[in-house]
């Protein structure tokens, strides 16, 4: 995850409390989604950014996951996300995200 984004996530967690923050991802691949999810839960796996060694344990989802989809107005979801749903490997993304959440999320 971009170093500046790591900094912003860390600041939001400090400002609002980690239990009140949900990180919503839109990455195009399962692996990239998993890496971003790991960064905001267990810490930066690349040891480069402000979240290195910082385990925020934030709640994190990808926008194509069913838990998130059901929160949307279906018309808005159709207009903004349905095309990408056709393109992305949704099952792979769900698998990666679920695995990271089960291991590192502290506020589920």
């Amino acid at each position, binding site marked *: 995850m971009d170093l500046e984004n790591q900094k912003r996530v860390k600041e939001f967690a400090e400002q609002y409390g980690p239990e009140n923050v949900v990180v919503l991802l839109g990455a*195009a691949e399962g692996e990239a989604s998993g890496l971003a999810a790991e960064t905001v839960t267990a810490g930066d796996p690349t040891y480069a950014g402000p979240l290195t060694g910082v385990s925020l344990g934030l709640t994190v989802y990808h926008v194509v996951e069913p838990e998130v989809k059901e929160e949307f107005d279906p018309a808005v979801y159709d207009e903004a996300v349905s*095309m990408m749903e056709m393109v992305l490997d949704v099952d792979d993304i769900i698998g990666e995200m679920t695995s990271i959440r089960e291991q590192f999320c502290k506020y589920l």
Partner: protein
Amino acid sequence: MKAVIKGAGYILVHTPDMVLHNGTTQTTERIVNPESEYLKELPKHLRSFDEVCAYYPNQVYIGNKTPDDLAALEADKVRGWVDIKCDVTDRYGKFGQIMPQEEFLLLMQACDVFQLVMLDKDFVAEFKPQFAANPLISEDIVAKIPEAQTEAAEIARLVEEEHSEGLYHNGKLVGCVKRAHDIDVNLSSHVMHEDIVSKASSVLSILAAIKSTGVAKDDVEYVIDCCEEACGDMNQRGGGNFAKAAAEIAGLNNATGSDTRGFCAGPSHAIVEAAALVASGTYNTVMVTAGGCTAKLGMNAKNHVEKDLPALEDCLGGFAVVLTADNGVDPYINLQMVGRHTVGTGAAPQNVIGSLVAAPLAKNGLKITDIDKFSPEMQNPDITKPAGAGDVPLANYKMIAALAVKNGELQRADIATFPAKHGLTGWAPTQGHIPSGVPYIGFAREDILAGKIKNAMIIGKGSLFLGRMTNLFDGVSFVIEGNDGKTQEAGGVSEEEVKGLIAKAMKEFAATLMAQAE
């Protein structure tokens, strides 16, 4: 009037030492983790010049192989085309060339008009003949290399004591770029190094385009630079003007120019602007050019090293496209079919693709499937896949296909075959603006002239949010079409029609005079 594509030049510069010393992934790592295993390991993953020339995507970039040749290769699932040795290993191609680092350091010095690039006299003595033998390097450029060069000890002192940026070759300090001002950060040695590299690789691109198109240097009236660097001092950080600076060295004596910026979308913006300048009759011949970017060298090298791959981002990229007034033959840019991501478009991928692809086609009564080839972000997947970013062109094609499905123009089952039919396999280096649609322009021109395709859409996309001025995304697209030879005049009136109208008016005037005389 139509603005036609006269041709293009494409160059790569193999700069392995700049990967280590100037790529931001490496410079950042040296600050945060100077003893890291990665920094120790990376030099072992650098490729030789011969390996770079034998790498298939590079041969496509300079025009010795085609995108179709590349698509026909069977890539390894993990290592892609890395272990395939191309049957053509020539450093020169029909579009341009792959320049080795030693020649490029000399070209940097030739492009420096403020005596900032200092080179070791032994290094110059060894490589100047090779530089002069490069077919794109004319005598006037060789003559810009000063006779008096610098002692190695003085270069070491300049780096150690005077904040100069070192220039290395095969791990050895062989020169430096001095700072251009003692306290102005915008003229620091780091910035000057980056800017001179961009300028020099742009000069090489211009020279390649001049050679491949056969356009006379004196015919070029305007140059637009669309790289992603900024040159200026502390009072005007991006004052410019790379375009005119490069045109001067390349010998385009009748040209002026300016810089257009838009992150990776810059080249598409610049080509639309260039086409409009030609179509309006403002200039007859306009060149769009961009040099390469040192910061992005080795950008994903951590992932490459981790997966035991070569550090594939070891080349600067450059390109130049020449647009001229209609000659009735060359493919032209249809300025009635320009797509743009507007402020109100939004960031959702389907809005982005809708604005760039579907909207301009619908305006002209066309469907997505009416475009034979799309050229969006043409990044080489060998580079991006190991970094977790996937196959970028393929992702774009899937999105375009999915939008066609949503618009009822394609069956859902046909999404899988759409990329092979309407797409290309990425071959461009991940140099930001370089892969953004433009690598296909040279081939698109040839494919249209050969009748292989009738049209192609070039799509540039830019991540404006990286500049922290806006959270907006950006993009521009345009369509290249075959030239039917019919004159397309501005305002819909041809020269013949104008002549006819004048003749008619003269006759009427004469008749009036005669009537008055009677």
